[in-house]
């Protein structure tokens, strides 16, 4: 085992621990000290300083110059049974967890700074609450990333789900936001049953909870398939894969920075991270990987189609996130785990950029609807420009070629075709969003739009810079960061680029100078009405009504008429019996005396005859 080089003159694992401890301290301060939380901006400063410390530590680890196989392990035994440690708690740094640490902390920091401007109209108390939740999210996500085994990962996994629930429902006064929060919570919990079951199966079969090759060996092929399938159910929920994706578009009810951090860049990518992290298990389960490739590719195409029909800029981006997560899952399914990870990291940068840019537009016109925007580039040069950079990155990012090459290399023609179609559609719907929001005639709202404050622009421009740098330096950065192989200059890359350019061109033709609504084209509307996500949503609603509600109704019937019936019957019997029995008590002394004498006589007679 190669040791990690020291960072800041300290052991690398301690620095890794510091990335978690800083936001944890911020969360405890803000969570426990209500007066501090109620101060608003100072409370935000506490969280941001903690995120800054975290980011600095994470980047120091990235730039420590560690060899790829270096490992830093600072874990304590957590659950010890029969002398065997089967779960640990602590920090485990290696080539997989360190890049993710950097992504999570940096996007977290950007979003926290951005929120200073975006939410400055909030009451101070809820502003502090918002930052407490953000710190909780960072703690949970980092706990997940540095986990050495499934149990700690599970803890982090559930905690990010909680943070997601809290932040989606941040504006809980809005019924739609409260509903969306509950929906996201329940759907991901439904999927998390898979993760819990996988942990149980893994423990029963191997008495270990990690993903080391030795554990996979002990698991056997059938066990590995079962565990991988169960884990993948959880991944589908967390990473919004069809048909468990329906919570993600609704999660856009949360504040836009939350959507950028949790529901685009990091939390939803936790599913893909699990695929990368526990890769030995998935590697041993080819059947599950085939299903992954198909589901991921289908999600990629399906969500891209649906994104074309959205009128809400955040919904467009949400479906786009579903689609890009589908790319990553498909890549993992094809065995191109480096491509999946590279796409995860690139996507985190440019999708956070897109969301934060969209947040600037929303902030300017106070509406999510594309129809309320239009012509915004004239007034919002920086944030509009950053949004265009993000859209270009989404359409053309090099890691997409890696994904396609991986899927093609694995000989999965079906998923490959789906993903290629999705690549073209991605370029089309991003062109549509850009042209509708930033160009064309200005809407009534856009006339008095103003550029975002510096606190919002700085993170947006930083992310734009990172996206451009990632784009330009991909071939030199990606191999170092995630060990991608040589970027294949295959015909697939050319086809993908061609399709993307075609998508841009069609989008420009439809929404350009001679703006036409693609939805009005014959045939398109009918087709879209079918796929407008409503179908899946309705299926879930029907399943919810027919399954869950019918079940709860039958339980309610049993409770109301059988269990309560027995209770009511016994209550009625004792009540009416008592009603009759109370008449014995006349209150008249001579009645009691008569009873006493009668009793005496009875006893006397009995004593005579009982001999």
């Amino acid at each position, binding site marked *: 085992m190669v040791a990690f080089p020291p960072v800041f003159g300290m052991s690398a694992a301690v620095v890794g621990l510091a990335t978690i401890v800083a936001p944890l301290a911020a969360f405890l301060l803000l969570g426990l000290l209500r007066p501090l939380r109620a101060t608003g901006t100072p409370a935000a400063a506490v969280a941001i300083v903690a995120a800054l410390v975290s980011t600095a530590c994470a980047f120091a680890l990235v730039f420590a110059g560690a060899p790829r196989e270096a490992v830093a392990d600072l874990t304590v035994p957590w659950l010890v049974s029969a002398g065997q440690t089967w779960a640990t708690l602590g920090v485990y740094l290696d080539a997989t967890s360190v890049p993710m640490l950097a992504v999570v902390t940096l996007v977290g920091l950007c979003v926290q700074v951005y929120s200073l401007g975006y939410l400055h109209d909030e009451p101070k108390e809820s502003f502090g609450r918002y930052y407490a939740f953000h710190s909780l999210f960072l703690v949970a996500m980092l706990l997940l990333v540095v986990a050495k085994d499934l149990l700690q990962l599970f803890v982090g996994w559930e905690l990010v789900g909680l943070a997601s629930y809290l932040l989606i429902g941040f504006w809980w006064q809005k019924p739609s936001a409260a509903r969306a929060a509950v929906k996201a919570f329940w759907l991901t919990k439904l999927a998390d049953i898979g993760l819990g079951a996988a942990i149980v199966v893994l423990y029963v079969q191997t008495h270990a909870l990690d993903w080391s090759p030795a554990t996979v060996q002990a698991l056997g092929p059938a066990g590995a398939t079962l565990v991988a399938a169960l884990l993948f159910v959880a991944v589908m929920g967390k990473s919004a894969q069809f048909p468990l994706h329906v919570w993600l578009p609704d999660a856009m009810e949360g504040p836009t920075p939350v959507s950028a951090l949790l529901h685009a860049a990091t939390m939803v990518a936790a599913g893909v991270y699990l695929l990368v992290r526990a890769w030995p298990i998935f590697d041993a389960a080819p059947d599950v990987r085939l299903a992954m490739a198909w589901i991921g590719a289908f999600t990629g195409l399906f969500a891209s189609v649906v994104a074309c029909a959205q009128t809400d800029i955040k919904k467009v981006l949400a479906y786009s996130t579903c689609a890009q997560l589908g790319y990553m899952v498909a890549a993992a399914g094809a065995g191109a785990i480096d491509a999946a990870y590279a796409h995860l990291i690139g996507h985190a940068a440019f999708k956070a950029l897109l969301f934060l840019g969209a947040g600037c537009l929303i902030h300017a016109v106070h509406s999510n609807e594309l129809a309320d925007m239009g012509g915004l580039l004239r007034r919002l040069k920086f944030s509009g420009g950053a949004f265009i950079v993000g859209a270009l990155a989404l359409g053309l990012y090099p890691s997409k070629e890696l994904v396609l090459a991986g899927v093609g290399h694995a000989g999965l023609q079906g998923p490959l075709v789906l993903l290629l179609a999705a690549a073209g559609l991605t370029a089309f719907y991003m062109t549509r969003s850009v042209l509708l929001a930033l160009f064309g005639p200005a809407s009534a709202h856009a006339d008095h739009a103003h550029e975002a404050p510096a606190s919002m622009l700085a993170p947006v421009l930083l992310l734009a810079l990172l996206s451009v740098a990632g784009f330009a330096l991909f071939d030199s950065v990606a191999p170092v960061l995630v060990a991608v192989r040589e970027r294949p200059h295959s015909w697939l890359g050319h086809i993908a680029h061609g399709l993307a350019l075609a998508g841009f061109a069609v989008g420009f033709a439809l929404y350009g100078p001679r703006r036409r609504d693609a939805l009005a084209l014959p045939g398109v509307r009918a087709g879209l009405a079918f796929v407008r996500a409503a179908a899946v949503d309705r299926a879930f609603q029907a399943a919810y009504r027919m399954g869950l509600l019918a079940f709860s109704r039958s339980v309610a019937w049993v409770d109301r008429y059988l269990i309560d019936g027995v209770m009511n019957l016994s209550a009625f019997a004792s009540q009416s019996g008592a009603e009759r029995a109370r*008449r014995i008590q006349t209150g008249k002394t001579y009645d009691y005396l008569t009873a006493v004498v009668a009793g005496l006589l009875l006893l006397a007679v009995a004593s005579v005859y009982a001999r």
Partner: protein
Amino acid sequence: MPVQPWLLLGAALFALGVYGVLTRRNAIGVLVAIELMANAVNLNLAVFSRLHGNLHGQAFALFGLALTVAEVAVGLSIVILLHRSHRSVRVGAASELKG
């Protein structure tokens, strides 16, 4: 000495007392009937004392008389309280225990 007539007298007195307790509606009448029952018991004690030829029964009868006096004192004070609270010495006047 034949004891049978005396025992019959005692039983008759006791039965009379029970009848009086059950039928009298006047609390004082009930008390008197109770006295009758108590004295039937005393008569029995005295009779058996003579039968066995010792004084145990008669000594018990004397204690019984003393107890009866105390009982009458308590009983009469209950009657007075009954009269105060219900303006009546009828036994049926007090029916607070009615369910």
